[in-house]
């Protein structure tokens, strides 16, 4: 059963297949206005996970998103047609884009066919393209504002992605990457 949040400014509901731990926090159901997952659990919030205004779960019919314990998502667009994992204590800043699929073919003629059919879709959003590749943000990673994390990428445990970076390749654990395309600029000391 879909539920309303007592504190919500938006007149919407949390879909029935979103699992929210009793000690997790969802600021607004607006985050789900493009959500259309038909998975058993389309988004799962672990204990202490928290999402705020501007966070958008643009999740397709087969998409599954998991937010680990105390994961913080402060206004990211999560475009998911397969799987997006946000690890324990990971932090996503404002306007971050995490996408496991482009949803459009590179071929312009095929793309044109997709967008011409868009007015028939409810909600008006592109269908999955079948080429999604899971994105994994491991625990304790931190994604700076306006950064993009592209399909198939794993950001390693404890790593930092600098603001406005575009990450096309895996980031090793305890590493700082910046730039477009993102490159390693230093390494970090793992916790003792």
């Amino acid at each position: 059963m879909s539920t309303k949040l007592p504190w919500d400014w938006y007149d919407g509901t949390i879909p029935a297949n979103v699992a929210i731990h009793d000690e997790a926090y969802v600021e607004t159901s607006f985050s789900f206005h493009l959500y259309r997952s038909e998975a058993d659990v389309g988004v799962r919030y672990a204990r202490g996970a928290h999402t705020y205004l501007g966070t958008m779960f643009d999740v397709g019919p087969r998409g599954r998103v998991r937010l680990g314990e105390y994961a913080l998502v402060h206004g990211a667009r999560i475009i998911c047609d397969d799987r997006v994992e946000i690890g324990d204590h990971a932090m996503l800043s404002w306007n971050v884009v995490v996408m496991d699929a482009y949803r459009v073919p590179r071929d312009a003629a095929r793309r044109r066919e997709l967008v011409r059919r868009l007015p028939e879709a409810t909600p008006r959003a592109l269908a999955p393209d079948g080429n999604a590749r899971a994105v994994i943000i491991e625990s304790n990673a931190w994604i700076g504002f306006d950064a993009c994390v592209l399909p198939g990428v794993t950001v390693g445990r404890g790593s930092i992605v600098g603001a406005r970076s575009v990450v096309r390749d895996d980031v090793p654990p305890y590493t700082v990457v910046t730039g477009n395309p993102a490159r390693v600029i230093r390494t970090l000391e793992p916790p003792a």
Partner: protein
Amino acid sequence: MSVEVDHPPNVSLGEGTVINGDLAFKRFQSRVEPVALSVGSGCTMDGVHFDLGAEARVSVGDHCYFTNAVLLAELEIRIGSCVVIGWNATIADTDFHPIAPAERIADAIACSPASDGRPRPVVVRRPVVIEDDVWVGPATTILKGVTIGAGAFIEPGTVVSADVPPRARVIGNPAQVVGEV
């Protein structure tokens, strides 16, 4: 699901076009008559900001799909048909302020409500043209005077400050052509 918004009188929308989001026209100041903004048919403008200055014109063709794009126009932005623009992309036909330091001081003063309407220095404006079938990825930036050729594929996060040939695939800051689609 989403709320369609009222629009100013000098906005023309084609059949089956949907514009939603509270911020669509919050900074729409164009006085161009009869039509400052035209959007063709079958378009989906989800959370787009149409930020048009007093003299700005923006045209969008048919069957376009924009999500949370920010269009900043002081002169002209011309977008073809079947163009897709991803989340949080910004398109601007001006830098809004002059390059020269002294002129920027004058502009900062002229822009302030405290300056009693003193005229601003001349600021460069150059039209942005995005041709048919272009894909503009999320978090991209497209700057003044740029023409993006038909069918081009602008990867997420790219900063485009020079023309992009038709069917080119571009990446990076500054944008570099990495192949054809």
